[in-house]
């Protein structure tokens, strides 16, 4: 290997070491990068995202369209075991997966209206379907229209609120994480093993 090649390796190693070093502040906390102003690099406002709205009594819950696989009438379910969490309405087999049907009313504490489990919103990933009374409405929200909540807290399913649209936004990761952990806890208690 010649001297030039060794020089290249050293430069690259220094570059990789820096990139993979412990993280510094990023995103909105990050200091302005010392770059020459350039129209190409200038960020344009992010466009609106589409959300499906689930009605639960008087509560309107919006979830990203990207998370929704299907919206369909709720069929007869295989009942949940007696030890299941109150939100667990039962299960439903759908082609390649078994879905756990979740009562959004029980989960959120909203007062359920009539026909509270008429409609299922099947999530695209995981094994979950959300039961509500209606899920017809689709809205568009810009990032700056949402009052975002910090992650965690007592309601991990709540991502934020969009007051102008009168709805709360579901945090799909927080929601499915909560559901999975409660099912696992139930399985541990009953010694039945984790549900599929």
């Amino acid at each position, binding site marked *: 290997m010649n001297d030039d090649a060794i020089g290249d390796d050293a430069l690259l190693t220094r570059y990789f*070491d820096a990139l*993979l070093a*412990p993280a510094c502040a*990023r*995103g*909105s906390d990050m200091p302005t990068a010392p770059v020459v102003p*350039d129209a190409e690099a200038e960020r344009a*406002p992010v466009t609106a995202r589409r959300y499906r709205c689930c009605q639960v009594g008087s509560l309107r819950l919006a979830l990203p369209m990207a998370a929704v696989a299907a919206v369909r009438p709720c069929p007869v379910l295989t009942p949940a075991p007696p030890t299941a969490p109150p939100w667990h309405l039962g299960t439903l087999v759908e082609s*390649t997966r078994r879905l756990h049907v979740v009562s959004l009313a029980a989960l959120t504490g909203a007062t359920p209206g009539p026909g509270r489990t008429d409609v299922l919103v099947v999530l*695209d990933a995981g094994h979950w379907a959300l039961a509500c009374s209606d899920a017809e409405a689709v809205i568009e929200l810009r990032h700056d229209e949402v009052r975002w909540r910090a992650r965690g807290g007592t309601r991990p399913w709540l991502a934020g609120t969009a007051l102008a649209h009168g709805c709360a936004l579901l945090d799909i990761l927080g929601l499915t994480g909560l559901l999975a952990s409660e099912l696992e806890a139930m399985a541990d208690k009953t010694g039945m093993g984790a549900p599929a």
Partner: protein
Amino acid sequence: MHIWAIANQKGGVGKTTTAAALGGLLAAEGRATLLVDMDAHASLSSYFGIDAPPGGGSYALFADGAQRLRDEIQRTRFERMHLLPASPALATIDRQFGARPGMGKVLAEALAEVAGLYEYVLIDGPPTLGVPMVNALAACTLALLPTQTEFLALRGLERMLQTLAMLERSRGAPIPRLILPTLFDARTHASVACLRTLRERHGPVLARATIPADTQLREASHAGIPAGAWPGARRGGDAYRALLGELRESGPISAKAHRA
């Protein structure tokens, strides 16, 4: 969650076709799959007819923070296959952020946030060495290296393997890899000789599957259909099915890990 980075510093070796084909096969099996486009050319995004909004897509993770991932993921028209698209702004990342400490781990941090949602993440890497490529390789559990079966591509592969070795040292952990021969044409001496050379030099990490030079793969990409679902691409589709089987049965993606 399995994270496969499909990477090579050389362009035109079949990275995007491979990402789309494997993603399509996994989603068709019912596996929740996220495709990540880390190439400013946005070929994978174009494959599925999806555009990132200005300043959005994978670029937003670097500009605004890893937490933007959930907002930027879009559905494809294939069930259980989602996409984080790329925008041309990705090309400005190196100039904007340079070698700022930690910028190589942005994608890994973002993907940790969606670990419960997807079983597979397939990253389509750029054909240049820079922040997006380093992010792809720092985040992955396997580097899949498509390599065109022609001699210029072999030199590109050697450079890619040197890069991987240096990145492993910086990452402090090995990066399992599998070299995938692509655009193989058994009718040409050059292709056959090149495949033989690959076997001699890299046998243990060379895929048994070989992706043929199937013109129908191009037709599939034009139609926005993954190879496995494109009726005309029988040879290409079968080769990708064989590759997927191979990825599962050995190495870092054992059958046991796959079921988890």
